[in-house]
């Protein structure tokens, strides 16, 4: 099965996202600075300096981006990157929407199962379902993998190390 291929976003698009992200950070740092007003002097001293400096830097960055945008500066060629399949940023940029939805769905499913059922059930269950239906491995492989995960967690954490592992939500109350 092949991935849907997309070309990476053009440079102008990257500048627009930088603009949006920087604007958001200006708001975040501004809010952080405002929050320090309610604290005693010693409590607020360091956060005030850090958030103040961060706000100034973000505003300067925002101004720089807007300046370059207004001047419509010529697009600089992207520095050559290793565009071979598998580089993280390349994979993120070129994976299709369906692949993203599937990957995030599986990850979300794991953590929801973890919260509801605890690690001892969620981990082997996820391994079985993901390998069989997500990675299209055989039933035998998926079942054996899940059994190894279950045995490994139980032996290592419950029996030998006796280190707490995430439990089901109803066991926590």
């Amino acid at each position, binding site marked *: 099965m092949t991935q849907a291929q997309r070309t990476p976003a053009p440079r102008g698009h990257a500048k627009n996202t930088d603009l949006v992200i920087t604007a958001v950070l200006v708001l975040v740092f501004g809010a952080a600075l405002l929050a320090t007003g309610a604290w005693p002097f*010693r409590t607020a001293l360091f956060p005030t300096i850090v958030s103040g400096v961060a706000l100034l830097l973000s505003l300067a960055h925002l101004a720089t981006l807007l300046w370059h945008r207004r001047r419509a500066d010529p697009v600089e060629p992207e520095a050559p990157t*290793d565009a071979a399949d598998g580089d993280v940023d390349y994979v993120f940029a070129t994976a299709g929407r369906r692949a993203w939805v599937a990957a995030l769905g*599986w990850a979300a499913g794991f953590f929801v199962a973890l919260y509801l059922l605890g690690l001892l059930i969620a981990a082997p269950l996820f391994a079985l379902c993901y*390998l069989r239906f997500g990675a299209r491995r055989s039933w035998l492989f998926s079942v054996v993998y899940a059994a190894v995960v279950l045995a490994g967690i139980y032996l290592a954490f419950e029996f030998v190390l006796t280190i707490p592992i995430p439990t089901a939500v109803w066991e926590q109350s």
Partner: protein
Amino acid sequence: MIEALLASLDQVLQLQTIAMMLLGIAIGFLVGILPGLGGAVTLALMLPFTFNMDPIPAFALLLGMYVVTATTGDLTSILFGVPGEATSAAVVLDGYPLTRRGQAGRALGAALASSAVGAIFGAVVLALSVPIIRPLVLQLGPPEFFGLALLALTFVVILSGRDLYKGLIMACLGLLVALVGMDPVDGVPRYTFGEIYLWDGIDIIPVVVGLFGGAEVLQLMLSKTSVAQHTAPSDVHRAGTGAREALRHWSLVLRSSAIGTGVGLVPGLGGSVAQFIAYGHAKQISKRPEEFGNGAIEGVIAASATNNAKDSGSLIPTIAFGIPGSAGSAVLLSAFLIVGLDPGFEMLTNDLDVTFSMVWITVAATLISTALAFAVLRPLTKLVHIPGQTLVPFLLLFLCLGAYSSTNSFGDVLVMLAFGALGVACIHFNWPRVPLLLGIVLGDIAERYFFLSYSLFGWSWLTRPIFLGIAVLIVLALWLPLWRERRNRRRELSKVASK
């Protein structure tokens, strides 16, 4: 001193001591490979087992485990892009890209060799400097420690590449994240949004695991290929090549080891700082700095050499004056007290053989674990040819356990998820992650020393000579890359003009 060295060697070579050391090495191997199960946490778990032991076998167990975790933590950083230890994050930057190019063996060989040299370097420095370090460290006060924290952040910002603004902004964001929680002075909750979970602040382990590991696991789910894209036969024989390259870069190894030992010497700065300072230094002096972040072997060498060196460095203030240089050495300090040792004068005179036994244990454990790691490299490098999706359940499990193990709270898993999402966003939109991480690591330390400086000296601490020297270094470190970039741009323009 020579007699104490030989006497301690004789005690280390006893059967019980060797057995304890081997057990510690085995545990350390496992702990180092598992992301999130840190050396300091495991030290604390093993402490109760040392109650009835003699000092030297007790430290053989504890140190044997502790010194190995740094080495083996680098293995998962290189093979999976998931830091096995919080102090192995810098190795991911160039070790993992090498793995993706089918050069895992080369990266592993270089990491193991430089790590071994770093450990021996640190142990030698420990042996030589214990009697003389005290007056030097006592010259540094809170202003100087604050300056060193800023210097470490500066090096990291330089690592953020061409866009200095982004690096500085992310570092500030990291500092703010570190300030979440109860104010250590007045007990006022800061940036907690009414959540009791946040009163203790945000733990670094779920942050590291999420920021670096989350993106890599997601990438494996999306790419549907193996970690190594080349289908060439296992390149483990290139481990020897990697080791030889590390030895060829002997000056870089020694300098990085010195940085690791020096940073480990300063209480509270920690291993992550040492790795990134050494990494930043290696990038600055490299003839090919553009390769850093894409599989520069020098990056792997520099980052790996510091890890073990800093462990020995952090032992120096711990032994000499009972000031722990790191979380792990803080736990070791407890071990000193449990077995009846008094740090300071006693450990430098009457118990000097115990002190020197730590040197021998560090050297021996490193050599044994390095040999063991080379021996299992073949099956380890075969792991990277397994289809990536097959590793996903395994790695998700590691991420989850790594995050949860820090405080046994599901809140840490949520923090890990949040920073995983942030890490993905940083990669996708080309914002640097490393300054964010180091801002979080250094935030507490920086604020503590900043506040102490202000309390003790008012604002006059800004004019202290050593602090001013560090400030000059910071300015130079920020200015040099800008100057270099402008110079390169002028050269390119003149080339274009001459054509």
